[in-house]
């Protein structure tokens, strides 16, 4: 059948994702990133609650440049996932599904995640 002649265009470098698509794939990437780093967050929480020494250790990590970078990364992942998730919940409720509004809300999600990360970064540094 001629079905197999359909063009396949899956070059990830060349695909131009529309904004809602970008928000969607970043939602997945940020979720995976947080899953992959969950052990580190649990370890930080445990250390900070276990003893005064552990608290000082966790605070010291949060003040090191690597720790700040880590927290900013996690912070962006959390905020993007949070805002994009709220947007998906609204879309599930059939709110904002019109093309223009959906495009604008995806832009808003991206901006809110980046702005929140900037605020976090400035307050950490």
């Amino acid at each position, binding site marked *: 059948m001629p079905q197999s002649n359909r063009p396949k265009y899956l070059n990830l470098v060349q695909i131009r994702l529309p904004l809602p698509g970008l928000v969607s794939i970043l939602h997945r990437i940020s*979720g*995976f990133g947080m899953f992959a780093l969950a052990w580190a967050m649990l370890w930080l929480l*445990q250390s900070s609650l276990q003893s005064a020494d552990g608290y000082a250790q966790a605070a010291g990590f949060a003040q090191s440049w690597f720790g700040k970078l880590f927290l900013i990364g996690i912070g962006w992942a*959390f905020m993007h996932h949070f805002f994009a998730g709220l947007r998906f*919940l609204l879309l599930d409720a059939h709110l904002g599904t019109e093309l223009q509004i959906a495009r604008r809300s995806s832009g808003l999600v991206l901006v809110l995640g980046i702005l929140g990360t900037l605020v976090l970064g400035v307050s950490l540094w």
Partner: protein
Amino acid sequence: MVTRVVTGAHYGLKDWLVQRVTALIMAAYSILFVGAMLVCTPGDYDEWRAVFSPQWMRLATLLFFLSLFWHAWIGMRDILMDYVSSTAARLGLQVVVILLLVAYAAWAVQILWSI
């Protein structure tokens, strides 16, 4: 009366719903927690520990963690279903994810109740 729909298996409906309910639980906890931390920022170990010392706070935080791990399971399952086409590899990775998340849940209980 049970309404049966012939088309579509609807296997994913429960997971879809769980993903959204757990998301709402986590969102509520996150907003309240971040808000509370902004209002009265704990400045040292004793104040930080005091945040988690009431029983209701430990239970609320545990609910957050259980929602998080259940939510993460559905998300990771979706990712593995999309990108790992070999059934054996996908099954193996799914088992690893489940074991990890169950271990995390036990770890979260230990963290919260050894304060």
